[in-house]
């Protein structure tokens, strides 16, 4: 059964169908949360919260792919959690005051896959504001379209385009600062 069919059943209150959707996409959603929050336990808690919110709101979900819709909920949940920890920061601050993410020990996957490179990219992401991180990761990690991001974050399409450009520019600057070789290797 594909996502659209399971989503339709979920809208009618079918819990097992919703459970299948969560299981099918939880790895991608968890990694989105992990890269926004920078902490595994935080990411798992945020994803759990997002799943509960999504289940409560699924009856009103109208159109769009489950993964995109759910990614937006996860991203908003993560931003809210960061906001709760740092209530003086403004989400509308386009330049985005940088909220420091905790350093963490790399997992076995990271150790196995070019540890230094991954840590440098993580450091680059840490230099972004929570909202900038979310928008870059929604686009480049989870592959959401501009329209899906705009709908998910409740901002105009043009705002997505400008914020994404600013976030990428900032990330690029940080990567060039911490490890210029990364971009050369990717080019």
């Amino acid at each position: 059964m594909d996502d659209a069919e399971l989503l339709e059943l979920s809208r009618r209150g079918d819990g097992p169908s919703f459970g299948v959707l969560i299981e099918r996409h939880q790895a991608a959603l968890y990694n989105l949360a992990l890269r926004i929050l920078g902490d595994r336990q935080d990411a798992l808690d945020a994803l759990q919260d997002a799943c509960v919110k999504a289940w409560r709101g699924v009856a009103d979900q109208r159109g769009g792919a489950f993964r995109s819709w759910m990614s937006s909920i996860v991203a908003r949940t993560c931003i809210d959690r960061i906001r709760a920890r740092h209530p003086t920061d403004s989400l509308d601050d386009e330049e985005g005051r940088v909220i420091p993410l905790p350093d963490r020990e790399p997992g076995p996957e990271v150790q196995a896959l070019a540890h230094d490179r991954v840590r440098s990219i993580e450091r680059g992401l840490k230099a972004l504001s929570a909202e900038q991180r979310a928008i870059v990761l929604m686009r480049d990690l989870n592959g959401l379209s501009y329209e899906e991001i705009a709908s998910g974050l409740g901002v105009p399409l043009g705002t997505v385009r400008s914020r994404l450009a600013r976030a990428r520019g900032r990330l690029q600057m940080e990567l060039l600062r911490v490890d210029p070789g990364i971009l050369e290797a990717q080019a």
Partner: protein
Amino acid sequence: VNISPHVSDELLSAYVDGVVAGEEAVAAGTHIFSCADCSRRLELLRATRAAVQSLPVEALPRPIDLAFLGGDGAATNAERRGFFAWLGRRPPAWLAPVASAATVLALLVALAPGIHVTPGASTVGTGQRQISAGLGSGGVEPRGALASSAPGATSNQKNFEQGVAPLAAAPVPRPYQVSSQFPAAGGTTLSLAASPASARVSQSVQLTVTATGGDSDKNLSSRGLQLYARHGTAETALGGVSGSGETSTLRSHEQLTFNISWTAGGNSGSGSYTLIARLFLADGSVLEVQLAYTVG
């Protein structure tokens, strides 16, 4: 569209994503092609995007708790769609004379050539190939490390060790039943071995689960490879390997081996147990192997 003096950051970012259209796209492309600075900026922007995309996928520390879905949804999810879907179906005619699926399974194991049942060991089930076809080769030898029955399964072996079984998982509220109608798994097999062949209460038992890829790569669901102990109608999760990151795919003719140390009896004491290994595939199907185990 006039691009002067250079392509803006915003336009370049959108251009990288391929969301610029019409005259604007033509003008941007023409300028980038003829401008060394903008070509370099485009290259760096693509590299920045590629860096984010190259981040490794990490496995969830534990699956999402689906208790919020209520009793029906929390107890079962992927299994209901795949492995348990057959429960709602009428059994095939050839099953009709048989009292239970477990009996069928035992019969198939007994009849299948090439199955090695160690004398004294109580093997009640085996891998997908034997159960679905009834005529497969290989089987379960509960006394020691188990080599895969699949020919050529020697490359890319992955081993996962787990010293202590996490017994905190909630028992599954309804008893599992064994299906004799697995979806086609293309020769993928699953085996389970326990050493020693029986144990006293609290004795440490080494359990080894081996999944062997068949004719083609199989994507695993996030639940991956899991091991359970059933005692009466209660089933307890012993641990497993999450189906993400490194273990997201069981490749063709690859062995995925999971070792776990189980404290025999756990909190339930002595008696007859059924040890169960399940491999959860992304398409919703589940391969299962069972091993009867006596804790004295």
